[in-house]
């Protein structure tokens, strides 16, 4: 049960943020933030990420 990001791969494009149904993600200048309290591990963000930086395990 986890949402994981490989920070080194992330290009901070924000694609993941635009599809997260529960507003768990935010793109700050410091990188992607995930609010684990909101995240449902659905895993839509994993599917849209152009570089495969996100991994979601139910």
């Amino acid at each position: 049960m986890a949402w994981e990001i490989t920070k080194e791969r992330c290009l901070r494009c924000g694609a993941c943020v635009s599809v997260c149904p529960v507003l768990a993600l935010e793109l700050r200048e410091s990188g992607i933030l995930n609010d684990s309290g909101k995240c449902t591990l659905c895993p839509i963000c994993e599917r849209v990420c152009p570089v495969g930086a996100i991994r979601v395990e139910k």
Partner: protein
Amino acid sequence: MIKDSYDVIVVGGGPGGSSAAKNLAKLGHSVLMLEKRQEIGSPKRCAEGLSMASVDVVGKGMPKRCIAKGINGAIVYAPDGNSVTVDYGKRGGYVIERKVFDKWLAYEASRAGAKVMAMTEVTDILKDGGYVTGVKASICGEEEIEIKAKVVVAADGVESTVSRKAGLETVNKLVNVDSGFQYEMSNLNLEDDEKIIIYVGNEIAPRGYIWIFPKGHDVANVGIGISMAEKSAKFYLDNFIADNPEIFGSASIIEVNSGGIPVGGFLENMVLDGFLVVGDAAHQVNPIHGGGLKEATIAGEIASKVISGCLKKGDVSKEALSDYNQIWWEERGKKLKKVEKLRHVMEKLSDGNLNMLAKALSGDALVEMTRGNKLVTLAKILMKNPRLITLARHLL
């Protein structure tokens, strides 16, 4: 340097933000445009293509240094290797330098009287009695401050969270967001450095396409936009590059870009009390080719006129601002909705169908279709195949 309050705060310093900020300042309003990045325009999330029709909207008075290369047409390759050549005519188009271009737009906004602040991140929305009344922002990483405004414009791009924080639902569906990935490459072996080159096919780019946008000499943006695919966009682009050594064999990677492209899911409502959203944040992109520069600019212009009228009347309620919804849908939405239909049809075509289309369609017809015109021509061609009749009906 920054005042406590403005008529309008624009969140995001991309083309949509600069367009809104510049026009509002010109109309005599006090405007603050906030951009979280340390440098406006960089890194780019764009293939940098601009048709001449778009230049007329976006690039009036654009200095030469914004242009990387003039373009006179396009070559579209079907999966079987056959191609359709599109002639853009005398006027052609450009591949631009977004980093230079976006900064120029911001210079222009500031020259019109808007205050622009880079490295200033909006972290929250202020609300009072249901109205959006300003933002919380952090300048150069310092402690958050509150800045008031009569109207806040969200021009914060595909990653927009400002709208959602304000209470406007802008989450897009996965099917409506293309995964984009791109390398700017040099030392390429390009067959024609004055044409953009497009490759379609479900194997190489599921529900999307691969592009080569030349930037002069042996340099080009080489990218891919796909959706709902098994693997990442990077995976498909790397494969394509490996499979085409005659173009890429000696090439180098100079820059790496990725991005989400909203290619559908237009919003019926884009306003709240004291609040409005433009550009990628409002999914205002052409669903077939993914171009959003022109759309963001037009939306910024429409928004500024509506906001100016509302400010003068002293009514920035949702009802008053909703003129923006009406005008945008009338001027852009209707056309883009047609293009969205075209996209839904194109996505369902097999590689065999695409090969057939490449043989049947002229370059001119192709260009018209991407603008939402001549969809009947396409429908007629598809209807020749009994299995595609139902699909083709969507275009009528």
